[in-house]
Each structure stands twice: as structure tokens, then as C-alpha cells.
């Protein structure tokens, strides 16, 4: 986490939202907020763009679908040849057509979901930088319990005292600057 942040702590999400609205209205850029649970509508005050993870998920899904169809059509249709003697040829299984497209539906669907879900979650962890065992950088040891925090990058704003004043007026029970 960045150092040199103006940190304001609140007891109540509504107070935090009031303060955010005020800060936003004054044109002061917010660095980030830390809350125990997601607060709806917070994005509009923080200029958070809608994540493109959904698009990523769609693309992963398409990948899964193509992988599934290529695998099944390749193996059952007898077109697959990976070299090293790994290849397929057509086998008569119960008189079914080699490209039994109706039978491919279930696996095609499952692999689509498998790729879309896992791909998206893995991408989420990559872009957020979370990983197992990562040490959390906390501003307050109650921020995952009942404390709502707003931070402002002290390097990007001037007149720190005035900002601190606003935050205190808006109900922050503690305002400080991290070093």
C-alpha cells in the first residue's frame, strides 16, 4: 500500500457515503475505501469503472467451448493427429454417427462453464494481487469488522488540513495521515 495517505475512519456506511459524496463534490480524488462489506453506489463517488472481468469470462467460456468441440470432434470424428503416434480414427460405437453432435452438447456445456468460471476467478486474483498467504495491509484492525475507512492520496491533494476538517465534520471519528 501507498504510504502518505489521509485516512478517515467511520462507524457507519451511511456516514462514509455522506462524506464521500461531499469529497467527490469538492473534486477531491479518493484513493480507496476499505469496508467490511460491499456498499452499493460507492463506485460512482470513486470513479470506479465497471470491471471487464465479465468480458474475460465470456472469452474464457468461448475458449472452453471450442476446446470441447475440437476435442470431441477430433477424437470421435477421427481427425485428431498430435504426432508421436497420438492420433484418432473413426470407431463405430453402437452405430452412432462419428460426429454425433447431439451427444456433444453436455460436455461442451460443462467445459464452457469450467473455463469461464475458473478463468474468471484466476484473473480476478491476478489483477487484485491476492494470493494464498499474502499479508494484508491494514489501516485499522477493525476494518474487516465494523470500521469504514476512506483514504485520500496526500501527494495528490494540497490543503490537507482543510480536507481533514471536512472529513471530521462529516462524521469521521478519526482522521490521520499515514507516514
Amino acid at each position, binding site marked *: 500500500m501507498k504510504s502518505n495517505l489521509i485516512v478517515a475512519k467511520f462507524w457507519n456506511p451511511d456516514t462514509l457515503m455522506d462524506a464521500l459524496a461531499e469529497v467527490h463534490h469538492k473534486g477531491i480524488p479518493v484513493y480507496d475505501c476499505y469496508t467490511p462489506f460491499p456498499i452499493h453506489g460507492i463506485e460512482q463517488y470513486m470513479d470506479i469503472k465497471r470491471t471487464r472481468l465479465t468480458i474475460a469470462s*465470456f472469452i474464457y467460456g468461448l475458449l472452453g467451448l471450442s476446446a470441447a468441440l475440437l476435442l470431441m470432434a477430433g477424437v470421435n470424428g477421427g481427425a485428431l493427429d498430435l504426432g508421436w503416434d497420438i492420433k484418432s480414427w473413426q470407431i463405430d460405437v453402437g452405430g452412432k454417427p462419428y460426429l454425433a453432435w*447431439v451427444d456433444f452438447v453436455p460436455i461442451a456445456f460443462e467445459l464452457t462453464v469450467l473455463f469461464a468460471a475458473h478463468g474468471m476467478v484466476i484473473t480476478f486474483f491476478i489483477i487484485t494481487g491476492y494470493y494464498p498467504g499474502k499479508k494484508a495491509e491494514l489501516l485499522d484492525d477493525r476494518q474487516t469488522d465494523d470500521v469504514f475507512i476512506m483514504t485520500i492520496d496526500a501527494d495528490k491533494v494540497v490543503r490537507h488540513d482543510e480536507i481533514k476538517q471536512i472529513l471530521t465534520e462529516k462524521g469521521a471519528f478519526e482522521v490521520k495521515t499515514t507516514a
Partner: protein
Amino acid sequence: MEAAHYKPEQLNERFEFSGKFKKNVIYLLIIGVVFLVTGILLTLNAPAPAHDAAAHGEHAAHEVTWYTYFVANFLLANTFYFRIGMGAMVFLMFTWLGGGGWNTLIRRISEAMTQYVYVAFVGFIILFFMLDEIYEWAYLKEGVDALIDAKRAFLNKGFFIGSNLVFFLIWGGFIYMMRKLSLQEDREGGLNTYNKTTPLAAGFIITFAFSYSLFSIDWLKSLEPHWFSTIYGVYVFAGTMVTSFSVLYLLIVILKRNGYLAYVNDGHLHDVGKFMFGFSVFWAYIWVSQLLLIWYSNVPEETFYYVRRMGGSNIVLGGKSWFEGYEDSHEYMGYAFFFFFNIIVNFVTPFLVLMTRDAKRTPVIVYPLLFLMLLGHWNDLYLLIMPGAVGKYEGSFGNILMQLGFALTFAGVFLGVVLNSLSKAALVPKNNPFLEESLHHSTGVV
């Protein structure tokens, strides 16, 4: 931003069925009737198509004439618009049971849609007199077909008409009660009507589930009386819901364009869109389940149904002898196009279009899709009815015109009835306990 911009007094608005709306409905009726009559005249003089040997085997000849097409198309049109009304009722009752409050602002439109169901009952009652024309079990004498005879206890006119009249009474009764309670709430307020609607909804859903599957067996499945499939009722139900949600979205968009429903926000549209999306996927799930299970086992007593519908797909998919030994299935080849058209229009297109959040809340995008989906589900119903009712595929101009005529005439009647009943009550149920919730409705981030 989610919130819609409206003036408080708009919450008291009423729909007026006059001027442009009335004129358009009348135009629709006129065009429809003209098409219908021209279509009939064209088919009247066309040479009667050859006797459909495949469907009826060595049975007594049943000649397919313009009248057969007329009855089949009548059944198609009546069922199509009936399903829209019925779907609206199911939607109302389901959301009620699920504690959904978001749809309060659009519930009067759903209510108006249900009012068409009474008209559809009349259509079905007229069809009672035409059963002989398209239902094999109705025109075949006993002793001709052993399999049909084995089902005579169910497939006979007395039971058919009797059970359907009971269904109409039950459904009509529920719809009448629902509408009455809703209007009563407007006048009286309080929680009295709210408390009464809950048992009504539960009762409706239970009786509906049982009666609707029998209804679909009666009117649609028994067109091919040798064939059977246990999922059939669910399939018809899935199509019902998609059609109904499409029409609901369409009506909201039309009314909004004409200055009504300013308080209906993107969130409401989004949720109706979600239902369209969800039920399209559900429909596809049922579609593929039925096809897959029958295709996989390849037992002739079931597959002949699909041979008729996709038998010609050997051309589409480059196969060779999909109807080996089933010589006249090439006469059904025309259906193969509609069969694949069905899944593309009713699943692939809505799936891709409605997938994103923005699309569902942008009427400009959804508007063309709605018509496409209505066409698609007309096509779906067409595939359920035609191969059984008239046999082999016949794509003459007259037939197409007749079908178009039916579709437009019924559309005119449907819109007339729905808009008329919409004008009978306030557009906003002002005493509904969920009104505030619906006014502040937001779908959240997704």
C-alpha cells in the same frame, strides 16, 4: 443512473385507448383479414396436396384441403396468443409467491394481458367443432389403429371437450379473482386483498401445473397420437413463458414511447429482459433434453417424430441416409429448415444479444429481438402443430399468406383486448404494499 425521471402526478395516470392506438389496431385487423381471405382464396383453388400416406398409413384416406390448413392455422394462432395471456398470469402469480415486489409498476400490463385468455377460450370452443379435421384420433374410426384404440379412454371427444371446459373454468376463475382483488385493492387499500392473493397464487400455480400439461397433451401432442414424450408439458410451458415475457417487454416499450410509464426505470426493463434471457435458456435446455434423449436411444416409436421434423436435415448436415427406408420423409424435408431456424432464433440469438447488462436495458437493441423471438416461437408452435395436423410440408404462397393473415388478425384482437382492459384501470396499483419498492427498484451491479 438507475432512477427514472417522472413527476409524482404521473403515478395517477391512466391509459387511454384511443387515437393512434385504436387506429393501428384496426389497421392490423383489416390487413390481417385481407391476408387471410386472400390466402384462403389462393389455397381454395390450388390442387389438393396428395394424401399423406406416411402419417396415416393404410388408414382411410383423409384428404388435406384448404380447410385442414385453415383449422391448423387457427389452432396455431389461437394457441400462440393464448399462451401469451396465460404466461402473464403465471408470471404474476409466481412473482407474488416468490415475494417479488419489483414488478408492481408493470403489473397492470400483465393483468391486461391475462384478460385475453377469455377470448382464447372462445377460440378453443370454436375449435371443438373442427377436431375432425386435424386430429387423427378424432376422425379415425375405432378398430383402424390399434395404438390409438389403446388410448381411446383419453383420446375421445367427450373427455377432450369436458376436461378442457373444466380447465377453462378453473383458469378463467383464477384470472377473474386475481383481477377482482387487484382492482379492489385500488379502491380499498389495506392489506386485506394482499393477504387474499397469496393463497390464490398458490392455488393457481398448483392447479396450473397439472392442468397445463394435460392441456398441452390434449391440443398439441395428440396431433400425433402415436408419439409420446413425458417432457412435453414442460416444453410447452417454457415456450409460453418466453413468448409472454417478450410481449410484456414490447408493451412496456410501446407505452413508454407514447409517454406513459415514465416511472418505469431501466431496472424493470432489465429484469423483464433477464426473464426473457433465462426462459430462453430454459426453453433451449428442455429442447435439447428431449432431442438428445430421443436421438440417443433411437427407438422408432419416438424417433419418427423427429424424422418428420429434421428428416431432411441430411441435406443441411451433409449426411447420407438419415431416413433410410422411410421413403416419403423427403416430403417433410421443408420442416428441417424451420427446425434449425428454431434453435438459432429462440436460443442462440437471444442468448448472445441479451447476455450483456446494457443490452437488456436498451430498448433499441431489444426491440428488433422481440419481434424475432415472437417469430421464433410462432415457428416453434408451427413445428409442434403442422407435421401432425397437415402432414407433409407445403410452402405455397397461399398457405403462407393464410398463416400471416391469422397471425395479424389475432394480433389485432389481442392488442385490442389488452389495451382496452389496460384502459379500464389505473396504470399504477397505488395501494399495493410493494409500490415503494418498485419505484426505487434497482438491479444492483449486474
